[in-house]
């Protein structure tokens, strides 16, 4: 009886069949990717999911920094919604995010359009304009504080040259709000500029040439070619900047500690003050969870807007 032999790779290939090489048991191939994912999933669970679940749990307990405390249901959330401080911090968070996104985007777009042109020193300008984003928050905020602190600060010296001021930016609620927003814009516009510049550089130049041949002016080029190409990245940038603005702890904390008179206290600072100043972990967690839900809702709305556009 002739021995049956396994089909060789050559005969398989000649028959148009895929080669059978070192075939492993089917079950191993299916589980291996998940096994390889396990370490990453474990880390994600430990540093993201577990703290998140703990934080949610804290919001339903009357705890301190040394203990979870008794379960109190929605009591912390009711206290939060009854607190005037919550609404004033919500209002400040909103206007802080609104003006930061609006002005940093506008400024970033203008600079991106400018840096997309070809002119001597363009490389230097691109690097220099990134500096506000690169400098650590502590350094930039403290430096700004020296500039605006009182009569002897550089800003007031410049104002005095024009016969104006002095303005005590950190000592008056209204001006403190302006100061915090301006500093945040200064720290944020480079990110907008960089992302928009990257997108501008991939727009096909032939579109502009064709449009010019058809008689389009600069404004029409901007409205009908440039902005449509920037729409998706703009929405993504806006989502990110809203999230980063509402979550911004270091700018108001380092500059004003939420003052004067809680005028620059956002939701994150309020959560921090409840948790670490008042030792009320439940209330602090409730504010933090509300902030998370708020940001998720905003992000969902904006992403749906992006999908519609796409």
């Amino acid at each position, binding site marked *: 009886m002739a021995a049956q032999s396994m089909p060789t790779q050559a005969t398989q290939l000649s028959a148009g069949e895929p080669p059978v090489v070192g075939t492993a048991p089917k079950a191993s191939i299916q589980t291996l990717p998940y096994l390889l994912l396990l370490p990453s999933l474990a880390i994600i669970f430990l540093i993201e999911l577990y703290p998140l679940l703990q934080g949610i749990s804290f919001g339903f307990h009357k705890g301190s920094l*040394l203990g979870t405390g008794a379960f109190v249901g929605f009591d912390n959330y009711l206290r939060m919604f009854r607190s005037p401080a919550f609404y004033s911090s919500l209002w400040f968070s909103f206007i802080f995010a609104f003006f930061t996104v609006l002005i940093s985007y506008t400024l970033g777009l203008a600079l991106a359009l400018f840096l997309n042109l070809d002119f001597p020193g363009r490389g230097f300008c691109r690097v220099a304009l990134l500096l506000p984003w690169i400098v650590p928050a502590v350094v930039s905020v403290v430096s700004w504080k020296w500039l605006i*602190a009182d009569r002897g600060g550089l800003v007031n010296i410049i104002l005095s040259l024009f016969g104006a001021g002095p303005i005590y930016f950190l000592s008056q609620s209204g001006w403190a709000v302006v100061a915090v927003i301006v500093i945040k814009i200064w720290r944020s516009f480079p990110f907008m500029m960089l992302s928009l510049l990257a997108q501008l550089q991939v727009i096909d130049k032939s579109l502009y040439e064709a449009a010019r041949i058809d008689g389009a002016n600069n404004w029409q080029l901007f409205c009908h070619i440039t902005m449509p190409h920037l729409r998706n990245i703009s929405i993504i940038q806006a989502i990110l900047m809203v999230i980063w603005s509402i979550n911004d702890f270091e700018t108001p904390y380092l500059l004003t500690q939420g003052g004067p008179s*809680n005028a620059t206290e956002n939701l994150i600072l309020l959560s921090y003050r409840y948790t*670490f*100043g*008042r030792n009320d972990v439940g209330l602090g967690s409730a504010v933090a969870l509300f902030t998370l839900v708020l940001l998720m809702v905003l992000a969902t709305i904006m992403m749906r807007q992006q999908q519609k556009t796409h």
Partner: protein
Amino acid sequence: MRSSIDPHVTQAPPGQMFSDDRLGNMRCHPHMKNTNKFSSLLYFAITAAATLLGGSPAQAKVDLQFWDMIWGPPEYIDTGKALVAQFNQEHPDIDVTYRSVPWSNWYQTFVSAVGAGTAPDISTGASFQAVALYDQGAILPIDDVISEWRAAGKLDDFRPDTVEVLKFKDHYVALPWAIDIRIWYYRKDLLEQAHVQPPTNWQELKAAAQALTNPKADQYGFVACGDTLGSQWMLTLMLNNGGGLFKPDRQLDLTSQRNMEAFHYISDLVTSQLVYPPSAGYHDDDSVSAFSQGKGAFTIHSLGLPGRLPKIADKIEVLKPLTGPHDDKGTVAWVNNIMLYKQSKHPAEAKIFLKWWSEHEKDLWTKGHATPLPTRKSFTADPYFQDNAVTKSILENYLPIGKSFATHATGIFPKLNDVEGEGVLQALMQSLLQGKGVDSSVKAAADRLNSILEN
């Protein structure tokens, strides 16, 4: 790290571990050659380790962690370390490690340590820290220490009430070690230039400030700040007027008539433009700097203000305590704690260190220049205090009128720590310094304080 070795292993004198005699003796029984080689190797390894690690194998030192807040200039920390070294020398069976803790985020530092199980054995701290942490199960009461010292008459050395004020739920939660107090200071040179006499009451203070205010010269009657020190301005004037934050039943009393008079007085000074305008946004350091530059002639600060401004120390004078509108005198003061922690594995030794430290800490002032005042009368009798005109004036005039901001309430309680830490009083002072409406600002503060107390 020190560890004991097997007492059955004889330790060779240092330097003789590898001597030929010892090696020769171990080679004297050939039929046990291999066993002896192994034993000798093991023996040498153990004794080498013991020698390297140091210490007598028969003794195990008790390790204690002592966390001390920064209560003065850099020499304070050096003095603290030297004192600890002295204790360690006098107590060979106890080894205390000194750690200096900054005030920034101090509460988070301690609760994080307690929560993580790494609390120190003993620490100094703020005036309501012990009672707040005791309420959360972290503090070891020192009733036995107090009883022992009471029987020996040693409590007589402490200023009146400083020991009893740290009693909570019938337990002594800490030992008092220092008194932090707020003082009115003025620039003697500015008053002399303007021919103004140091004021003695609130009316004269306002009049003096008016005479010293010249906005064109960037000079004002007062320089204040909007941080914790600024809130203590408010507390000082409230207590000066016979007010206080609480009623005897520990209910909030922020809107009492005496307190409202103090708030309106501050507001009046601001709206009369007698307070340096950037004050609301100032921190402690900013206000000290502005005071040194003569931006304000009067300010409130702690005992250490002249020491922070050595170049103009001779121009800084202590104002005699002001008489309030109802003939009251008072200022805000805190009795700072030194406390033991329940997590300590060696509470007996910690108490030994506590008692020793309390009796020997005078160097913290005479060499370390600590800023608060000692609670011990024997310390304040030292020439260091008596020969210094500023300190002597504070001891004679301010210490007797120092009161806690919970002065009318019965004893201390944990919520005092939250009231101080949450920032409500700072926000209220910032509102007053901006010239905002007193009634609305106080109401907002009262609502927020009540939400702290009711939780």
